[in-house]
């Protein structure tokens, strides 16, 4: 098979937005004396500035651990996690995290959810406030900004979560199966929304998913992982034209690539 190499390093010559070198991470066994579970063992990855990278793999392959390391929620046992030249030492607003569920604060209105970050950092100004309103209009929540999260639909909650992260102007977006819990129609709408958003801003994105079609539709590059411990099984560049649309999924090139990726995924799973 083509492309089945163990390194995930992209072409040299471009600046790396994310650099992960020799990262190891283990979790203590559930019972005393039980062997520690190695989630990652000497993992390497580089992501270019402005790249949309998809991490694809079965559950338990360490892809969420990888994202938690990038977000700064966890620290590696060994190795380096570097984002935009700085070693990650904890969570911060330069890396926007989108979770599987939107995780909005249910006691705050949509607007106050968006303003939570600036307020927490004591950077709330009239200018930021105006930008928040603008941002909410961009994501189609202009009329819902004074509503509470429980009054919104699933898709609207996700868009609100996007706005809450984007107000901080993150250099990197980390997404952990963000559309996994949505129904098929909303999910499609959110994928389209994300494509539009990314094609406008070109923020670097690391997107975790277990859906092959989603990875091929969204990503510039797909890193297929297998575990455990998590390893890179294969890397696929996605040479499909942009701007992309859901119609792309009907093309032969798409189907061909999708099949290759799926085979790599299944091979790793066996």
């Amino acid at each position, binding site marked *: 098979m083509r492309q089945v190499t163990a390194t995930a390093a992209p072409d040299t010559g471009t600046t790396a937005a994310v650099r992960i070198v020799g990262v190891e991470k283990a979790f203590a066994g559930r019972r005393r004396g039980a062997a520690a579970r190695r989630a990652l063992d000497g993992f390497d990855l580089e992501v270019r500035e402005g790249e949309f990278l998809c991490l694809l793999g079965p559950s338990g392959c360490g892809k969420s651990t990888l994202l938690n390391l990038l977000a700064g*929620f966890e620290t590696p046992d060994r190795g380096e996690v570097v984002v935009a030249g700085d070693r990650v030492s904890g969570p*911060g607003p330069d890396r926007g995290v989108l979770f599987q569920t939107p*995780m909005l604060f249910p006691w705050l209105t949509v607007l106050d959810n968006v303003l939570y970050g600036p307020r927490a950092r004591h950077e709330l100004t009239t200018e930021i406030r105006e930008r928040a309103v603008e941002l909410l209009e961009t994501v189609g929540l202009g009329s819902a900004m004074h509503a509470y999260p*429980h009054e919104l639909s699933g898709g609207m909650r996700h868009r609100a979560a996007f706005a809450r992260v984007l107000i901080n102007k993150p250099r990197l977006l980390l997404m952990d199966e963000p559309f996994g819990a949505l129904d098929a129609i909303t999910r499609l709408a959110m994928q389209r929304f994300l494509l539009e958003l990314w094609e406008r801003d070109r923020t670097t994105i690391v997107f975790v998913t277990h859906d092959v079609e989603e990875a091929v539709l969204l990503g510039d590059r797909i890193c297929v992982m297998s575990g455990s411990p998590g390893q890179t099984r294969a890397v696929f560049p996605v040479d499909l034209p942009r701007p992309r649309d859901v119609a792309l999924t009907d093309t032969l090139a798409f189907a061909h690539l999708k099949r290759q990726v799926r085979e790599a995924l299944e091979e790793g799973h066996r």
Partner: protein
Amino acid sequence: MAGSDELGRPRQRPSAVRLSRIGWGLGGIVLVLAAWELFARLKGDPVLMPTVPATARTFWDYLRTPYPAAGHTLWQHALVSLARIGVGWGAGVVIGVAIGGLMASASVVRYLIDPLIELSRPLPPLAFIPLFIIWFGIGETPKFVLILVGVVPVMIIATVTALDAVPKELVQASRSLGASPLWSLLTVRLRSALPGIITGARLAMGGAWTSIVAVELIASTSGLGYLINNAGVNLQTSLVLSGIVSISLLGIVLDSLLRLLHRGIDPTRR
């Protein structure tokens, strides 16, 4: 709005639902009063069972007449009990939340206190009354301590449960939006647990009334418990019933205030 919802039920305006709930609720109370009146008339014995109007008259009279002759009016007895509840319950809530907060953050504290709570849980606070009278006499101290004994464990359990139930990702979201650990603790972890803590405070309020009335029955010269007991000894049944109704009314008022607070801080309940 006329019509029906998606399940085919006739759609009612929220105000109509509210009105019908209040109507049925009042109906139940009227029914009980009617049964009481019927029973009183059939017996024709004011010591065994005074009629509803007779009880209402006694209630009204003793709002201004001291009982016993050299003592307080019904109104003042109620205030005395209320003050004891306010101080004991208030202190108990603060202590319980503080201990619960420590238990939820440090497992050593949890391991230390958990068995103590489990051991004390089957004990009715009333069992401590003789002990507290021996230790603290019959002043305000034993009453205060007795309320604490009832309130603190309930508040600890409610606080720990509520804090444990806060999703980890909610705190992670706030940290990655730029909140410091302290800011995140105050504005997300505790804030998210607040509805559960208020529910605990409502439950503890019921226990506090049980404790205070019981201790006033035995060791006091003021308060509603004392009034009820003294009136009972003198076979003034209508005054006993007046005291009971007073406790019920005060309980409803206090619980309504807490429910109002709950609604104020939890937009999903509006």
